[in-house]
């Protein structure tokens, strides 16, 4: 659907008043990026709405501040980005726009949530639990990517998938990212392995492009393997590896 100018201008007010549903809000947000005049008007309307908010100010409970101050000790601050919208950010927005190397993290969000649109629908049901879970995964992945001892290896699987492993001894974690991964087929999944000598230990499943945190201790492993397995995974590989990547030393 394409807004012509009149529609868009009419929606700027509803947008600033928070009166659009999530789909319309996202749609109009995208429109704003392409329309400077609309952006200016929406910004003025938002500033106007903020006066309405200030007009109903009342102090929260005194105990609330101590709780917030205690909580932020454990809350990682997001890095700056080059934004295209003045509006408030949702986690989905952040993930979509986050620049490399956080593209890996964006991949995770897409993979685990099936895309922002679905996420926006699910938000209705379980905003907090989901956001927390994604944030935890994102934090883990970000911690690995940002670790001073992070090492990266790239590979290409036999089926053409492009793969990246980033591991950090300090974090004792590794993440695996795949692009161009062909669909595994009905009743099948891709399984990751950590190779320790001749032993292959299950390290998680991945069935479409994205990023996963490898389960198990990468420290002791020499390589990461990828095989095609029956859905649900196997205790040990049942097919020839599509990929065996040495972990960077």
């Amino acid at each position, binding site marked *: 659907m394409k807004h012509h100018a009149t529609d868009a201008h009419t929606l700027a007010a509803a947008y600033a008043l928070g009166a659009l*549903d999530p789909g319309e809000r996202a749609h109009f947000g995208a429109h704003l990026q392409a329309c400077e005049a609309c952006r200016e008007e929406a910004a003025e309307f938002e500033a106007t709405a903020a006066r309405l908010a200030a007009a109903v100010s*009342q102090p*929260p409970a005194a105990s609330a501040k101590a709780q917030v101050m205690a*909580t932020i000790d454990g809350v990682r601050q997001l890095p700056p980005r080059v934004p295209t919208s003045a509006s408030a950010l949702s986690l989905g927005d952040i993930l979509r726009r986050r620049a490399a190397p956080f593209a890996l993290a964006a991949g995770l969000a897409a993979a685990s949530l099936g895309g922002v649109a679905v996420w926006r629908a699910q938000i209705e049901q379980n905003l907090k639990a989901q956001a927390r879970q994604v944030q935890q995964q994102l934090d883990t992945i970000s911690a690995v990517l940002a670790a001073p001892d992070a090492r990266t290896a790239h590979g290409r699987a036999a089926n053409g998938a492009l793969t990246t492993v980033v591991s950090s001894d300090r974090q004792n974690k590794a993440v695996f990212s795949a692009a161009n991964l062909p669909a595994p087929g009905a009743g099948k999944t891709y399984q990751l392995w950590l190779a320790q000598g001749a032993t292959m230990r299950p390290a998680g499943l991945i069935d479409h492009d994205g990023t996963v945190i490898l389960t198990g201790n990468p420290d002791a492993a020499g390589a990461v393997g990828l095989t095609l397995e029956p859905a649900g995974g196997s205790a040990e590989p049942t097919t020839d590896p599509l990929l065996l990547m040495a972990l960077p030393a």
Partner: protein
Amino acid sequence: MDAPPPDGRPRPSLRLLTTAGAGQVNQPVPINTGRPSDDHGGSGLTDLMQKVAHGDKEAFSDLYDALAPMVFGIVVKVVRDRAQSEEVSQEVMIDLWRQAARYRPEAGSVTTWAATIAHRRAVDRVRSAQASAHREHAQAAREHTIAFDEVAEQVETRLDSEQVRRCMRGLTEVQRQAVTLAYYQGLTYREVAEALRTPLPTIKTRMRDGLIRLRDCMGVTT
């Protein structure tokens, strides 16, 4: 074109109430109210935000003091339940900490940024709670309409928002309804249209015309 109020009785005109008994809404507003130019003291908040973006917790403590009353005020206005509002407000404040580095002064004032985030979180909370019971939601929307006068009166009673009060009086009643039901009650414009039994385009126009009048009356620029 305008349908009568759903309850069938004529809507009393808005009036300025005495402040007696309205103590709980007459709290000091620390920032950005009643002034024709946006963000009086705003550069102070912008500086604070920069420090917060670098992980400065003392700066965040000051930012909290400056913004928490506005955040809690608008959240409780929309969410209504006090316990839930406390929770949502804390989430908003934590979000301001988390996203501090993403605040862009050129896109708007700190106050506007915080108000936008707070209002969005509040309506998300209300709508997710109501999504599973849409019919009740529609009923609630109608009840909101009935409660509208009370809401408008509360707005009007604020001593410290002389400008907002004056500018709200400058709207037509139908504009004020549309703006208030959306912003203070957290209704979508579809719900506003349903509650007022008014066609969607009319509602959108009223919201737009109302905001333009408020903007011009308040002298908002960005």
